[in-house]
């Protein structure tokens, strides 16, 4: 197989989707041969490595060739001194800088984050766009040509089908249901029961089964589940549907990987909830939890998924490095919309719309991601929770009544309890980003949040601030476990020895799925990540070749061309 781009393109910009989606294919090898053979300069954005972290940290079997493809890509092009970094993470910034290159051609895939953002921004530019797929290359002369002529995704007609399956079967504990591949699954104990259905443990200790109540399965839901199963996502922290389930030949539900822990909403619920659940937590644990969450949502974005209904009860927390996204059956997959959402976490521009009636954009999700960032950093607080504010939360949100100021000049409207100190101790760039979203109504991309929060973690891990208060979950406050919680968790237990308390099996008070015993689950395995060596420091700076920077005065990388990849190389091979 050979690969070629017209000779007139002098700068080749490679989007990360090429590594994740095409890595390991013969087309990818041909592409890499072409790049090396042509000797043309190859550019990647700063988001390239960040996206790679998000993929690698999922430890998803289906990405087995991603790490080696990345290694080949970097080592071959670096050896040839062909690889350059564009110092941009967000889409607009990146495309602005691409436009400055000499005859650029952007190489990406058809449903990449890049292409989706391109359509959402609807901007023009001289850069050519090459779309790679297993069938070959589609080449567009410039961005406008791409926007005009690339096939558009339209919402599936199934979304408007007002029908539901009237299943005449009912299955319960002890029953054996069949997967789509005709494998039997026995329902063992009931774990939970909700508005849509029930969750059961099964004869496979790693797998739970969700069985829907009657009249809940719609054509949209079932075809979405079918598609989700075919995608084969097997990340440990994403409770993704693994198999469809049938009982006597009738669709009843699906299997998924079991999650554990309490919902984020129950842990991130103010000082008492946090301290009672994790008495030894430091701020770095909060930040680590947020990184875990962002990586998972970004990983989903790379699969043409918009989570849609992001909120604190849609994830389970077992420890700061063990987080599980749950209720995945509602997410938007391709052209199948997410029919649900809450007002508090949804972009106000979408309020009042029928969520099943349109496809959400990544831009819509940006708002929910910002909500998530704030809620986690502020231990469950809503950004528009305001003292002496408007009559309803709705008004506060619409008026963007954000009670925090960049110069800390007005703290009168910040809720009581020490939240003003959390704000004061945040890195300056994160304060500015939160302010721009919640006070000014701007949008920041998930990957930009990810970069900022990873930097925040480095500051904390590297102990780069002298003031010890900065390392506390609630700076300048002295919250202790409540008497009730101490009773449940006697002080004699080593609760404050290590802030990553080991998983104690089914007796662990943090286990959400009550009543499960004898499942033989052990301490979660550390992730096989080439970026996280034994120490707790985040990779690139752990390599030690970056001048000390605080998030508040970040300088552009002076060694633009090779600096990133030197670090990267160490991260990959070191």
């Amino acid at each position, binding site marked *: 197989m050979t690969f070629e781009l017209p000779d007139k393109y002098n700068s080749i910009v490679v989007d990360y989707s090429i590594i994740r989606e095409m890595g390991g294919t013969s087309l990818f090898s041909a592409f890499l041969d072409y790049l090396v053979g042509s000797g043309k300069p190859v550019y990647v954005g700063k988001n390239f490595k960040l996206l790679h972290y998000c993929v690698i940290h999922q430890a998803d079997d289906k990405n087995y060739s991603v790490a080696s493809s990345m290694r080949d890509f970097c080592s071959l092009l670096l050896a040839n001194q062909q690889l350059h970094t564009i110092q941009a993470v967000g889409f607009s910034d990146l495309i602005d800088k691409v436009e400055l290159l000499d005859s650029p051609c952007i190489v990406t895939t058809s449903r990449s984050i890049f292409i989706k953002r391109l359509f959402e921004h609807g901007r023009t530019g001289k850069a050519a766009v090459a779309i790679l797929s297993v069938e070959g290359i589609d080449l567009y002369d410039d961005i406008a040509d791409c926007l005009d002529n690339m096939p558009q995704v339209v919402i599936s*007609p*199934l979304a408007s*089908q*007002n*029908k*539901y*399956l*009237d*299943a*005449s079967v009912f299955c319960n504990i002890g029953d054996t249901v069949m997967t789509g591949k005709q494998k039997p699954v026995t329902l063992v104990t009931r774990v939970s029961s909700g*508005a849509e259905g029930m969750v059961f443990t099964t004869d496979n200790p790693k797998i739970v089964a969700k069985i829907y109540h009657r*009249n809940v*399965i*719609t*054509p949209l839901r*079932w*075809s979405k589940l079918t598609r989700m199963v075919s995608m084969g996502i097997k990340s440990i922290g994403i409770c993704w549907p693994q198999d469809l389930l049938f009982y006597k*030949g*009738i*669709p009843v539900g699906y299997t998924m990987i079991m999650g554990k822990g*309490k*919902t984020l*909403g*129950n842990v*991130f*619920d*103010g*000082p*008492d*909830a946090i301290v009672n659940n994790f008495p030894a937590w430091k701020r770095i644990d909060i930040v680590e939890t947020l990184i875990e969450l962002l990586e998972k949502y970004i990983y989903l974005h790379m699969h043409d998924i918009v989570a849609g209904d992001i909120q604190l*009860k849609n994830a389970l927390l077992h420890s700061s490095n063990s987080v599980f996204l749950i209720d995945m059956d509602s997410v938007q997959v391709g052209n199948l919309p997410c029919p649900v959402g*809450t*007002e*508090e976490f949804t972009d106000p521009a979408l309020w009042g719309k029928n969520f099943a009636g349109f496809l959400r954009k990544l831009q819509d999700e940006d708002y929910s991601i910002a909500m998530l960032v704030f809620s986690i950093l*502020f*231990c*469950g*607080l*809503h950004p*528009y*929770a*305001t*003292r*002496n*504010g408007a*009559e*309803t*939360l709705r008004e506060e949100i619409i008026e963007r009544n954000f*009670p925090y100021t960049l110069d800390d000049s007005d703290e009168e*409207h*910040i*809720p*009581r*309890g020490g939240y003003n100190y959390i704000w004061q101790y945040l890195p300056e760039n994160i304060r500015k980003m939160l302010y721009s979203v919640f006070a000014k109504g701007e949008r920041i991309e998930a990957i930009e949040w990810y970069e900022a929060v990873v930097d925040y973690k480095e500051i904390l891990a590297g102990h780069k601030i002298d003031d010890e208060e900065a390392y506390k979950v609630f700076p300048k406050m002295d919250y202790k476990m409540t008497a009730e919680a101490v009773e449940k968790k006697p002080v004699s237990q080593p609760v404050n020895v290590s802030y990553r308390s080991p998983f104690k099996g089914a007796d662990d008070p943090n286990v959400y799925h009550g009543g499960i015993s004898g499942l033989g689950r052990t301490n979660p395995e550390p992730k096989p990540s080439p970026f996280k060596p034994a120490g707790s420091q985040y990779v690139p700076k752990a390599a030690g070749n970056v001048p000390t920077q605080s998030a508040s005065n970040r300088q552009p990388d002076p060694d633009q061309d090779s600096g990133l990849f030197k670090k990267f190389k160490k991260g990959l091979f070191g």
Partner: protein
Amino acid sequence: MESNEMFNASDFGNSTKRRLPICFCLDTSGSMLGNPIKQLNMGLSNFIASIKANDDTRSATDIAIITFGSKVEIVMPFGKIGKDSSLPEISASTTLTPIGEGILTALELLNARKEGYKDMGIKYYQPWLVVITDGAPQGPNAMQNMELAIKACNELESNDKLVIFNIGVGNSVDFDILKRLSLKREEPISVSSGDFGKLFEFLGSSSSSVVSSGMSDDALYNINTEPEGESVDVDDFFKFIEE
């Protein structure tokens, strides 16, 4: 006045959840004696137990209880549910039925609670007023006070600042006057005292729908639980998917 003197922060807890204040306004006139009051107590304590058992509602639901019999009594003020695990036993003994005074007191409590939320910077849902009676207003100035209560409720409800559950028990209820408490609810909710269990179950699941699924206040006035859309059998179902 310095506002933090008005409210005791510890009564509000430090949960960041958006709160749903619910004030029960319960008839304890003589006609409730015996089985009805027994059923009421049982229903109420099951309700509280289910609120506490649910992670979503435990720290989000904020409950006060007022009774009206010989006089209006605040049996349980807001902010005490987590601390006292057992509910005070409600008893019936007298002949008067000062519904109006009871409701006006409830509205005062709810308003003060809202002011407290605002002062603390706590988000909240619009409050619920749950009125349960088995009769008609009785006692000195009972009718005038009932008229005042109706006016106040109508005004708050039409401005979307209050959700009203007007509930009549048994056959001696003055449904005409009870109906006037709410402009949005077509008919008062009518139950027999034997149905208290179901009634409180309904209130519990409604509060859980509000705090965990963001159900709209207007949906609380429509008790129809039939699923929307058309039910189809499995063969037709797959035809729709294939199309």
